[in-house]
């Protein structure tokens, strides 16, 4: 039986890992801090996947980011997706060569569909995660690109249809209003859009504790839940959360 997944998202900016709240970033620590507080090789055994996003606002130095990525993934035997600022085939290649198994695309989905096609032809749909950021404005879900700075005219449902049409492998759906709040995922929107979606869906934005993860994993047509909350899951927070989720008999993988 295909299992559902628990994913941790690390937000990176200029050499540091960040806590994000509604896309405002707060510095938490560098890779040494992360290693000290998370012992990543150990924590990885509680995760199904890791996503690392370069949210640097001014200059997304991809080489520097790739260098941190390659340090992070040593002795971590789970799939790693990386992205943030991919604007060329070379950018994608650098990430794949430094330990990414998949790449995460966002802005170019709307701005450079030809590049998206090229990346899919080279690496296959299954290597491409489409990240979609949205925010509620006057009761409508509006899509944002460029780290939440630029609003698109299109609404979420229509945009998802467009993105699926590009033949991407998965959707990483992130609600900016919920991001970093710990109040839970945007369940109403998710329930509406997930039913018709025919590619895997990863929920992001708002998980504050394992109850939210459980609630997300219990939804039909949701394939994975992601959390980027560095504080709520520090220390042995993730192993404990995974154990509770298994105790709830939810359909996640077990390792011998």
């Amino acid at each position, binding site marked *: 039986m*295909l299992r559902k997944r628990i994913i941790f998202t690390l937000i990176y900016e200029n050499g540091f890992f960040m806590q994000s709240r509604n896309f405002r970033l707060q510095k938490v620590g560098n890779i040494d801090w992360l290693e000290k507080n998370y012992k990543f090789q150990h924590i990885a055994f509680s995760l199904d996947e890791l996503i690392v996003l370069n949210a640097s606002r001014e200059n997304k130095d991809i080489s520097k980011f790739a260098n941190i990525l390659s340090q992070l993934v040593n002795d*971590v035997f789970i799939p790693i997706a990386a992205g943030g600022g991919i604007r060329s085939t070379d950018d994608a290649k650098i990430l794949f060569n430094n330990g990414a198994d998949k790449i995460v695309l966002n802005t170019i989905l709307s701005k450079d569909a030809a590049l998206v096609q090229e990346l899919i032809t080279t690496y296959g749909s299954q*290597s491409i995660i489409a990240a979609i950021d949205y925010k509620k404005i006057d009761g409508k879900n509006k899509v944002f690109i460029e780290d939440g700075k630029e609003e698109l005219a299109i609404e979420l449902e229509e945009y998802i249809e467009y993105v699926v049409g590009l033949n991407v492998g998965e959707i990483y759906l992130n609600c900016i209003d919920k991001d970093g709040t710990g109040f839970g995922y945007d369940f109403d929107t998710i329930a509406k859009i997930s039913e018709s979606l025919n590619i895997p869906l990863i929920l992001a934005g708002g998980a504050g504790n394992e109850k939210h993860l459980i609630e997300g994993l219990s939804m039909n047509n949701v394939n994975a839940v992601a959390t980027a909350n560095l504080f709520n899951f520090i220390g042995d927070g993730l192993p404990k959360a995974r154990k509770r989720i298994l105790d709830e008999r939810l359909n996640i993988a077990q390792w011998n």
Partner: protein
Amino acid sequence: MKVLIIDYGMGNIKSIVSSLKYLGIDDISVSNELEKIKSADKLILPGVGSFAKAMNTIRELNIDKYLQDTVLIQKKPILGICLGMQLMGLSSEEDGLTDGLGFVAGKVIKFDSTNLKVPHVGFNQVHFQDTSRLYQGLKNSSDFYFTHSFKMDSDAPINQATCDYGNTFVASYELDNIAGVQFHPELSQTNGLKLLENFIKSF
């Protein structure tokens, strides 16, 4: 122990190298040179991406000829991973019909997405036969990480393990010195490390 990962420029091989190191293998190289292929004890054929593109590169670099010699005649052990597993099959319908290396009687076809989310992504259970060497010491129906849109079908006796997604498909095969896994052992936590160790020890 010399393990060679065959390099034809497709996908992330860092995690395969890192898994082999973790298992204590000291001599790991990444190459497509004939001499290196000949002198290795075990071969790994990795790969992510398009079947047709991969076969083109493999033919351009003459890797197909090198492998026919070392794998079919010299019987050197080889493990194909994901696309690498598919490439050793007869053909794939990805990007039009393309011939594979033809070492294993299996054909690669697309998942039927009518009532199924494609790609097939995540950990899924693998059901193997008692005669398997790859899964020694693992519980039957253990979880391994898959991420693919095409799958192999075969009714030939290839000692296959199976996985269910929509229909049953080939999760792995084992024939004499040739093994292939559709999933990614290098991304499958302790289960995957055990499988890689089994390949190194039992092939």
